[in-house]
């Protein structure tokens, strides 16, 4: 119990006290996913605002041996967005900035909490990118709903290390293979997508 309390204090220092939820009634709203299954109540919910905060939270969990689950809007239907008993839930919906749009390369880089439905508007009218997913871009990428449009990722690994991957990188095509992984290689904290040109 003491280790859990210490973890919550550390996470508050990282994310800010207002972005760490511990009230039982509030926590109960995070027990369900897209098909309303009830999971166990999480220890706490952390809402990091940037990649460095995600890495620090994951590192703190590793140091305290506390399990964690990351999710976006919680629309997943396969149980991967449900909390773990006694675990921390890392919710990425505060990370909703479009970090860059480079239409010369047909690419945009976004944070994982950007609603998937907002992407098309961000690149219109010269480009289009329809992501058929009700939740966030991060969730869409993890379940393979982004398809071949995914060309770059920054991942926070389970030891807190940050890994930058691109379809231009050498080695295994982790970016291409990330779709459907349910985030197994790490938490996507930055996602680069390739949009399609609209030829009128």
């Amino acid at each position, binding site marked *: 119990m003491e280790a859990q309390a210490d973890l919550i204090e550390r996470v508050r220092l990282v994310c800010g006290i207002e972005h760490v939820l511990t009230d039982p009634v509030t926590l109960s709203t995070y027990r369900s996913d897209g098909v309303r299954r009830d999971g166990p109540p999480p220890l706490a919910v952390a809402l990091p605002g940037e990649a460095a905060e995600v890495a620090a939270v994951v590192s703190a969990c590793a140091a305290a041996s506390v399990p964690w689950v990351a999710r976006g809007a919680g629309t997943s239907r396969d149980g991967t967005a449900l909390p773990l008993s006694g675990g921390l839930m890392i919710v990425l919906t505060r990370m909703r900035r479009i970090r860059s749009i480079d239409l010369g*390369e047909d690419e945009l880089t976004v944070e994982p909490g950007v609603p998937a439905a907002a992407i098309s508007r961000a690149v219109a009218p010269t480009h289009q990118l329809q992501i058929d997913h009700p939740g966030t871009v991060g969730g869409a990428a993890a379940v393979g709903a982004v398809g071949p449009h995914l060309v770059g990722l920054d991942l926070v690994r389970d030891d807190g290390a940050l890994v930058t991957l691109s379809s231009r990188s050498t080695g295994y*095509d*982790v970016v*291409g293979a*990330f779709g459907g*992984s349910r985030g*197994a*290689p790490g938490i996507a904290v930055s996602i680069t997508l390739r949009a399609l*040109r609209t030829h009128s």
Partner: protein
Amino acid sequence: MSDSVTPRNATEAAAALAGAAAQRRPVRISGGGTKLGWGGAVQAGALRLRTELLRGVLIHTDDPHSATLGAGTPLANAQAQLARSGMMLAVDPQLGLGLNPAATVGGVIATADSGPLSHCYGPPCAQLIGVSLALCTGKVIQTGRRTAPSPSGYDLAKLATGSFGTLGILLSVEVRLHPLPSQTATAFGSTSDPQLLGAAGVKLARTLSGMQAFDVAWRGGFGGLLAQFAGSDATARAAAAAEAMSAAGLSNADSRADDSSTWVSQRAGQRSADRAVLRIHAKRRQLGAVLRLAADAEGDVVGRAALGVSYLTLNVNRITSVRAGLPEGCSAVVLDLPQSARGVVDSWGTPEGPELQLMREIKQNFDPAGVCNPGVFVGGI
């Protein structure tokens, strides 16, 4: 102890791999043997596992736009068979050095080798619906429309593509097929200015639409762009593209209907028997910088102008300076090397770091015995 084994089917291949794993004996997987010089060297004493009997082409009767291809099938044979049904696999790399088109389907997928058609159809992994992979445990994993998702969570078809056989033996692939175009035509224009060529490539990649292939070439201080169109109106669209090339500042812009030789030199430029070949991945707008680098290194380039993929052929002693001069964010892998330079030049040039650690974890996950082509891949994987 046998030096090589040629399994006749998936069961025999998986058993051979499991047997080698039990003895901790490295396995060198080979198809047509056209790319064995790529990547690092496998240690001496490795068992050569030949895939040549794992061949076959099966166009699915319930979906004529897909087929299952045995990994040991020569790609040229597969394309010829598919063409008889009016279809093609949109993967068209150079199929070997010289006149020996021996590259197999498995070898092409395992090295993610591609050609001009990738402009329109995407890289080889984009043609895959699923793969069948034998692991060192003797287990065979199959992914695709008719099977469950990979238990690892990763999209196995994408992970296996470009893995250089370091995860397991590719047994067969399920692929998408595309109709063979009735005719194709190509527009071309040239210049001796690499910066102008790069700028024209960037501009035309943005303004020309509907190209089946869009390549750049640079040889001996002179270069050009080639834009291929397919279909019944290919000739008219190529003529319009030639006008656009002229407007972009290229000289001698013209177009013509393709014959069998039109794109041969583009594919051939991706390989070399006596010089080094670097495969460079860059941003599209960095094409001019890559061409400038090639010109300074007295190298030749062929590549995909809109994709940022360039194949730079140069003398071995220029590799270090070219790598050092690459624009930020580019990657460069050495493919071909003269025999004398093999084992001396690091083909991958990837620094230690968390990215490489992730690659090693993936390798450990699929090949815990470490017997599948060990030492061939990035970071000595």
